[in-house]
């Protein structure tokens, strides 16, 4: 296990510039070939966002503004802050899981460290998300919510999210390369994950049922989304929720071990199967 870990780390440190170059190439590839090109990176999330906002505020009538202390936040702002980080998570659950399959030629046609593939895909997806998050910050500011000290921990949650989903892709992309079924399984669970994790409803005030509460506490997506909202709306530090942060760290360790195990077990079989 230790040698696998060393090997993956070395592959990453020796290929840092390659990771950036390939992430850039991945971005170029995603948005090229369409007349509107790069603007799709913004148009697509905006359409999704508007749809949810419309359905929730007019359909479900859950348009209540959120009041924290003296500040009142429009429902739309609260919603944006949940959905924007989700875009990255969603991308990683699909493209991250598919990454090795998609970059087959790096595995079967040349000598290239396989573990680097999920990482550069993750970097590529994060870049798009960072731009979107920047837009969200501007939106908050423009709506009269100037940056507070709590915004400082945004990079912390971005880092958490990046770590979680990169490790996820390290594990899942290897498994998906071996089995199409696993890929389908993951895709099937994306919608439930979105609806059950409190991205579009308030998970922080749901106290009715202890079982549901525990489910949300254990859910890493809920933790991350709450985290982003804690930064910009609820003004809470990440160390103020030690139990939840601890559980999330547990997830990171678990994924890390799983990814090492998958690498050790599957690395040598991958080129034969693809």
């Amino acid at each position: 296990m230790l040698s696998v870990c060393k090997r993956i780390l070395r592959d990453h440190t020796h290929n840092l510039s390659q990771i950036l170059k390939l992430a850039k190439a991945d971005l170029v590839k995603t948005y090229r070939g369409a007349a509107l090109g790069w603007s799709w990176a913004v148009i697509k999330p905006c359409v999704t966002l508007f749809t949810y906002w419309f359905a929730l505020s007019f359909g479900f009538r859950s348009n209540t503004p959120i009041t924290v202390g003296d500040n009142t936040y429009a429902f739309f702002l609260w919603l944006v802050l949940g959905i924007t980080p989700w875009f990255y998570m969603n991308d990683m659950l699909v493209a991250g899981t598919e990454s090795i399959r998609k970059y087959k030629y790096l595995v079967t046609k040349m000598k290239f460290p396989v573990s680097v593939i999920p990482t550069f895909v993750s970097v590529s997806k994060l870049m798009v998300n960072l731009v979107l998050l920047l837009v969200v910050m501007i939106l908050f500011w423009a709506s009269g919510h100037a940056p507070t000290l709590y915004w400082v921990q945004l990079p912390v949650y971005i880092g958490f999210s990046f770590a979680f989903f990169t490790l996820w892709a390290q594990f899942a992309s290897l498994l998906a390369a071996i089995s199409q079924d696993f890929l389908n399984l993951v895709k099937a669970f994306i919608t439930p994950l979105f609806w059950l994790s409190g991205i579009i409803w308030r998970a922080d005030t749901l106290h009715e049922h202890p079982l549901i509460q525990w489910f949300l506490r254990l859910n890493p997506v809920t933790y991350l989304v709450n985290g982003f909202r804690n930064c910009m709306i609820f003004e809470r530090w990440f160390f103020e929720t030690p139990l939840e942060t601890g559980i999330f760290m547990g997830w990171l360790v678990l994924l890390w071990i799983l990814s090492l195990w998958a690498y050790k077990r599957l690395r040598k079989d991958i080129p034969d199967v693809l």
Partner: protein
Amino acid sequence: MEQKTVIRFSNVSKVYYLYKSNKQRLLGTLFGHKKCKQKRAVDRLSFEIKQGEAIAFLGRNGAGKSTILKMITGVAFPTAGDVFVDGRVGALLELSAGFDPEFTGRENIYLKGHILGLHQSEIAALEPAIIEFADLGDYLDQPVRTYSSGMKARLGFSINVNIQPDILIVDEALSVGDEEFKKKCITRINQLINHHGITLMFVTHSISLAKAFCKRGIVMNNGRAMYDGPIEEAILRYNALIVKT
């Protein structure tokens, strides 16, 4: 002068696991290979290759030639035994050098260079030579997915001979090129072998090509080397093998 060994196979075996279904493959891969047919593509193979040698691998389809080249390239791993390779490997496996089909030929030159760890300026310096040799005309700036197999082979070959590899691996890639390109390749490969001391590993079904630059031939049959020696003799053995079956 004693040349150093650049490739050494010690008792190398490669087993492919053939499963009935995807589900069984998943279970088998995760929890140990059971309930599957085993195909021994390479069977306890040992050989040594010195720097500057040019070796042709001859044999029928499925004799294990491509698997050997893949193991040398480092994209496949031996099930047992040890593969030692010393130097940068430039490989053309299964006609393609690993291109991203969505990118243009020119972009693929850069991508490939970056993956190999070359700097932008180094690639820019190599670019004219690569373009000239590949001779793709207007297709250079078209996506590689629109290329014919001949064009892919040209570009792949051009990149691989120009990045100055220590070991050049060519798997069937020349058979799709036209005569003129073939000639160009032969001249270039001979030049690389004679002046730059590169080692060539070559898989082909074309006897004349094998003769054109290889002095040593290895005839493969069912994963084992049934002959390893001078190319003329290897060709005779290979022909005998074909006639027999």
